[in-house]
């Protein structure tokens, strides 16, 4: 009897959170879907029904395809940059050299800073001005005789978005390093010793034993970086403002909805964004919770 009453109390304690998330996550997602099926533009909501018209229009929208291409370029560079730098730095730090703690802290601190601060600083570092007005990283390259590196960063036609992956990698690669380092530290020493006794070289040890064991960590890192990349908004606003050629869906949704008041189209972009994230988040979540409950 008492146990039953306690079970009811347990449920009642989490109920507010369940209700809040049901409304603010699931309810609002459904509401956004509904808006995407209307012709709502302007400040007064209109809840008519136009079917999938907004989706079809969006697929023909030149600006949306720029945003998608930009996201693709950004994601590939950002994810690859973070994974490569993160893995290499983690392997170097795992060698047990003196001073490891200091390096670890230096690599990780950008995580604590907001994308807005990062963006405000990097927009000066990536100043595209040329000639006598050279400044920022270009000026640094010039004084180090690395002139071939001088470029116009986010102002580069068509591929400007690639420059924005640099501050993003600056901010997140240390985090990936920490993930990999934790993964490396969880590999038992016996395994390395056994491989060395069997005459494996360092390269063979990493290639055939350590890297395969890091696969779960890599998957986690991939999912986290992937969803950050699709959601990136603050950083682009802070570095570049709202420029069409640097649009990504998250920024395009904002300008369409809140600057242009095209609510129905904004909701449609938001739905695309949500589907893009869900495609890999939902299987990952189900896999994670399932493997965890098995343990």
């Amino acid at each position: 009897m008492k146990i039953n009453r306690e079970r009811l109390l347990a449920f009642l304690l989490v109920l507010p959170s369940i209700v809040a998330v049901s409304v603010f996550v699931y309810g609002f997602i459904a509401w956004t879907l509904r808006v995407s099926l209307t012709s709502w533009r302007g400040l007064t909501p209109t809840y008519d029904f136009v079917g999938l018209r907004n989706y079809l229009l969006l697929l023909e929208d030149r600006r949306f395809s720029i945003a998608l291409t930009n996201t693709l370029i950004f994601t590939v560079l950002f994810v690859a940059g973070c994974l490569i730098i993160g893995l290499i730095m983690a392997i170097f730090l795992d060698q047990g050299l003196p001073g490891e703690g200091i390096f670890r802290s230096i690599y990780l601190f950008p995580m604590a800073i907001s994308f807005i601060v990062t963006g405000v600083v990097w927009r000066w570092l990536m100043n595209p001005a040329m000639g006598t007005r050279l400044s920022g990283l270009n000026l640094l390259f010039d004084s180090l005789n690395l002139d071939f590196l001088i470029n116009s960063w986010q102002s580069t036609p068509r591929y400007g978005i690639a420059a924005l992956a640099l501050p993003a990698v600056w901010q997140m690669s240390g985090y990936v390093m920490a993930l990999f380092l934790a993964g490396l530290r969880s590999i038992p020493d016996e395994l390395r010793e056994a491989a060395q006794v069997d005459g494996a070289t360092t390269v063979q040890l990493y290639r055939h034993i350590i890297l395969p064991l890091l696969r779960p960590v890599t998957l986690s890192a991939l999912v986290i970086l992937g969803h950050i990349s699709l959601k990136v908004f603050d950083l682009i606003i802070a570095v570049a403002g709202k420029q069409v050629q640097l649009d990504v869906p998250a920024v395009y949704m904002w300008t369409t909805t809140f600057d242009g008041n095209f609510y129905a189209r904004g909701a449609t972009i938001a739905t695309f964004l949500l589907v893009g994230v869900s495609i890999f988040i939902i299987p990952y979540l189900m896999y994670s919770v399932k493997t965890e409950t098995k343990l």
Partner: protein
Amino acid sequence: MTTDALLKKRETVISPSLRKTRRKAWIYIPLVFMAVFYLMPVYVMVITGLKSFSEVNLATMWNLPTSINFENFAEAFTKLAPNFANTIFLVLPSTIISSFLGAINGYVLSKWKFRGADFIFTALLFGMFIPYQSILIPLVQFMHAIGLYGGIPGLIMVHVIYGIPITTLTFRNYFAQIPTEMVEAATMDGAGLLRTFRSIFLPLSIPAFVVVFIWQFTQSWNDFLFAVALTRNTSYPVTVALNNLAGSMVVAWNVQMAGAFLAALPTLLIYIMLGRYFLRGLMAGALKG
């Protein structure tokens, strides 16, 4: 044993690791190179902020200031002070409420599992990954409808609600390590759910509280999207104000740098003081606590 022999003995004991270190010394080259890469923006922020107004010159932006000068920091602080106040009024309540909510949820979902608890947990977690653009239109409408649009209290509520997934996850992972027998033993002794939570789990959960505190603090301090969508001019938190400051042509860029540094300082200090917990918090974000 003579001193000489002692020294020799010590040498043989320590020399293998020393030799190993020396053989690997080249690794310091990439390590230092990357450290310079990560510190470079901070260097620019600080030295630019410290330069006097007459030294503002893009051509010498990498040079150290000729004299140390705090006028930019003072000016940036005067401009951003109301926004810092807004951020503090936002961050403290949202962090504290989130922590306790997460603790209760994590406790129940790990130790008092009812039917469907795991499903509910998974469903909650999804809220952590959604792009917030996908709930933004209804959110703004809803906040208008309940009269919480434009102020800090509404923003606190939003941060608490969208913080539920990550705080619940952290506490659930943490409490999962505490043996369930402890709950059973306490129940045998006649302690109920709340009593067990208060006298056994709460005292044990300080590390988890620190992790969640740091996480929520940085999240709400650094947030931009919710802030720009749900606040007005007078209630802008510091991230929105800083972005506006940087976008305006009339504010000198060394004042912008000083402002950026000030806006980053609180989370940086927390990171420096509680860094090792911060790392753990990040791990929790990776789902594999």
